């Protein structure tokens, strides 16, 4: 026994990988696992101030919140309606995106559609933009008198839009569908490209007709990829916050993530924990199904084939018709929203297209006749403050997540203890299962008050930074793990033989070789940090606003033009970043689909 312990100590001292691994594990248990456990716990413990309702001491077990959500007079309004809305939105958006995306993917990969090379990049643009860009564009166009303030363009042009078109479920579904179509194209198109064309040729040799081949060979082989894409979109849509938040308020349309947000903002932490738990459960179940199906995918090993001779099918008479449809989609999902937003920031009164109505005031004007925001966005100190916050928080978080991901990859590849590798992999993957807003709620509950040596972080940029780092870990640790796996251990052992210590090996061997992968991962994390909102909305206060939360705050105060201008700046940053990656590492948008 004594000997065992002493060799244990010996290994810890001699093998810095173990020490590093244990430190990382402790860090991620604290940053990721602990908040999640705490929020699950909060759903069942009486929260401070709720004693009268729960009839329990603070911190004691209670089923009050669960009962209130599931089996009270209020259940229908506060729980089942949002749940229903959430499910309908997620199922419809994922389903429609899947169908449209599958058709588009087939046309882009396998047909003679004109300009398909150009379209296969251009149609991905909606996915690079923050999703609520579209919501703001929608409001700009369709807003009606139900909501006060400046009119929408349709209304200004004399057409009163009905509520169901202007707000609530319908626009939410349409916008999310447009947002997810590129993702479906990416996944299905990628799988289609890898399907061995010889499979289809073999069927053709046996005399199968074109439709029979598509239906009997191509579709079944593709099914796992298609279902997987659908589930991932569904899981993402469950946690989507910004679009239903912007479009739902005027008609009291709420999804679970919006209810969660409202519960937190009205200090109902117990109810917030219930919403978070439910959202989390749906996410876990969905991704569980996905993982289970991915295992099934191994039965379809041909998908990994070399993808020889993928044949293109002529579209014949429908060629130009379909071209028109695809071009229309591009206009609707990219040109129209961006143009609307740009124009909206240039018009004094919305929707009036007369030359004297155009102005640059919302960008660079001074002493505007509004209560707050009396100068154009580019002259407003709040904007620059938020921009600076965005850059430094997203930048530092991306750097930290990238480096931590590499370290995780290092430990996973090198740890002599398997359990350490397995648990590190697992804990860094956890945030992937948890929708951003639920994770933010969890982080908030952990860091709202001082705990041990850690002071209360709410109200400081640190809480945003930590949340973003944790949220990016699933992606960056995957990058680190696969990069280290490709690197192999010989390269490093060769340096070890010569007496290079772990730090020296990291600096002189591992980092220089992996810097490309690291740069791509950091840039992708950075973009997702710049355009992310659901993670931050609960955690930011005005003084720690980032661009996204600043823009939503402007929406809340009714400064539509200013909000649109900020979102345009975010979009521009996200697009620039995406193209930088495109140049740096080839078409890797597929990797960047984190939240």
């Amino acid at each position: 026994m004594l000997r065992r312990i002493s060799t244990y100590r010996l290994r810890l001292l001699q093998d810095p990988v173990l020490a590093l691994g244990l430190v990382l594990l402790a860090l991620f248990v604290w940053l990721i696992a602990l908040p999640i456990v705490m929020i699950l716990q909060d759903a069942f413990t009486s929260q401070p101030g709720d004693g009268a309702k729960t009839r329990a001491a603070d911190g004691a077990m209670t089923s009050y919140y669960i009962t209130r959500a599931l089996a009270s007079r209020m259940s229908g309004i506060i729980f089942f309606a949002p749940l229903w809305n959430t499910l309908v939105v997620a199922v419809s958006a994922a389903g429609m995106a899947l169908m449209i995306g599958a058709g588009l993917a087939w046309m882009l990969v396998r047909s003679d559609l004109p300009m398909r090379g150009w379209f296969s990049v251009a149609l991905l643009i909606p996915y690079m933009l923050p999703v609520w860009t579209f919501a703001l564009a929608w409001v700009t166009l369709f807003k009606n008198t139900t909501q006060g303030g400046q009119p929408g363009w349709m209304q200004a042009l004399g057409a009163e839009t009905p509520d169901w078109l202007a707000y609530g479920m319908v626009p939410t579904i349409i916008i999310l569908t447009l947002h997810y179509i590129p993702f479906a194209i990416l996944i299905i198109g990628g799988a289609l490209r890898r399907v061995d064309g010889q499979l289809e040729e073999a069927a053709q040799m046996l005399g199968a007709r074109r439709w029979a081949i598509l239906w009997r060979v191509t579709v079944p082989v593709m099914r796992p990829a298609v279902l997987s894409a659908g589930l991932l979109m569904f899981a993402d849509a469950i946690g989507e916050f910004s679009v239903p938040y912007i479009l739902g308020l005027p008609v009291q349309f709420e999804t679970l993530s919006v209810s969660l947000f409202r519960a937190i903002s009205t200090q109902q932490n117990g109810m917030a924990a219930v919403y978070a738990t439910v959202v989390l459960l749906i996410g876990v179940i969905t991704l569980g199904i996905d993982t289970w199906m991915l295992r099934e995918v191994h039965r379809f090993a041909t998908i990994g084939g070399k993808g020889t001779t993928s044949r293109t099918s002529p579209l014949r008479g429908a060629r130009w018709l379909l071209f028109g449809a695809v071009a229309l989609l591009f206009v609707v999902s990219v040109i129209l929203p961006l143009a609307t937003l740009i124009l909206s920031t240039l018009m004094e009164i919305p929707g009036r297209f007369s030359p004297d109505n155009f102005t640059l005031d919302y960008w660079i004007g001074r002493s505007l006749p509004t209560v707050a925001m009396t100068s154009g966005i580019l002259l407003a100190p709040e904007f620059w403050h938020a921009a600076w916050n965005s850059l430094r928080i997203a930048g530092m978080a991306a750097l930290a997540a990238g480096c931590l991901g590499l370290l995780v990859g290092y430990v996973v590849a090198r740890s002599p203890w398997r359990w350490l590798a397995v648990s590190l992999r697992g804990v860094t993957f956890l945030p992937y299962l948890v929708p951003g807003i639920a994770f933010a709620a969890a982080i908030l509950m952990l860091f709202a008050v001082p705990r041990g040596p850690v002071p209360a972080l709410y109200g400081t940029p640190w809480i945003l930074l930590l949340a973003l780092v944790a949220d990016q870990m699933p992606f960056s640790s995957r990058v680190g793990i696969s990069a280290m796996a490709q690197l192999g251990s010989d390269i490093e052992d060769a340096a070890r033989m010569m007496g290079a210590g772990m730090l020296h090996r990291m600096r002189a061997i591992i980092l220089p070789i992996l810097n490309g992968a690291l740069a791509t991962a950091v840039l992708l994390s950075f973009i997702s940090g710049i355009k992310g909102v659901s993670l931050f909305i609960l955690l930011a206060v005005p003084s720690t606003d980032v661009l996204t939360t600043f823009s939503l705050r402007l929406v809340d105060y009714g400064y539509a033009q200013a909000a649109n201008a900020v979102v345009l700046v975010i979009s521009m940053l996200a697009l620039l970043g995406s193209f930088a990656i495109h140049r740096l590492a080839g078409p890797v948008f597929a990797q960047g689909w984190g939240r």
Partner: protein
Amino acid sequence: MPEIVIDKLSKSFANAHAVRDVSLTVKAGSFTCILGPSGCGKTTLLRMIAGLEEASAGQIRIGGRLVDDPVQGTFVPPEQRGVGLVFQSYALWPHMTVVQNVEFGLRLQRLDASARRARTRAMLDTLRITELADRYPAHLSGGQQQRVALARTLALAPQVLLLDEPLSNLDASLRLAMRAELARLHREFGTTIVFVTHDQWEAMTLATDIAVLAEGEVQQTGSASTIYDRPTTRFVAEFIGSPPINILPAGSPAAMSLIPQGVPERDQITVGLRPEAVRISDRSAPGSLSATVTAVLPTGGSWIVETAVQADGIGVVCTTLSRPIFVPMQPVFLEPQNDGMHLFGPNGRRLSDFPSNLMETS
């Protein structure tokens, strides 16, 4: 020029025993080969000697110094063992030029710049890669990469050089050149060299001493000719030799007819016949087996004659240096020569020499 003594060394991973109870002495200044089929634990053994892997049990001593003993808790890290290892993959650092690769270890030893440059230059010259100095590994051929890997390791003047399958990634002509090169380096530096390979040709032509490994256990040690001429186990007999040794299963009529009467438990004995030690003739002789030619295959300098023993149809392959006069379907007689005949007991161990002695005297 230290000696390496390995004593009852074992290594087990979570799911497998890679090395079991290996005891082996590598003589100082020898050129020793560890030979075995792939997956038998060669790399693991080499990595334990290098210090990249800790033993599960047993001891390793290099030059009398105990470097690994889990029971005593001794473990000397790789850089303090005076050992150099050339990886099977060469493991050149892809972001460094040839010079930078070779210099890396010298920098770690804090050699001053001029000494370092001189040493690097000398190594590049020795391995004849001076003109590649500024290239990156991606732009080198396999043979050139290997030279760089050797230069990088030899630059630190290790007392023991470990090579993992040094020739297996090279094509035929390069293998010959590299073989000569390794032999020259061994003479020049006088280091103790241990290399592992699954290739018997590599082992037989390079090594002064060979240890045959199977499933993590040492089967036999000795010189190339000892191992070929007097294999101690059936595994060694079958693993070494090309074409492989002919096996007449225990109890088969062919085997029985070759084992003299009076040997105890004759029907438990397996007979191995080296292909070059079987004479083919069209006339019967005492102790010969009647067989039928099934194929005659030219292999360049020699011929392979495949036959089937008439009594039980067992295939026996013979090699001859002269063009055979036989044609397929022709009945012939096989005359095994005593020096190429090996008898193995039911446990696969070589029987004492008495059967062949017996046959000579009879």
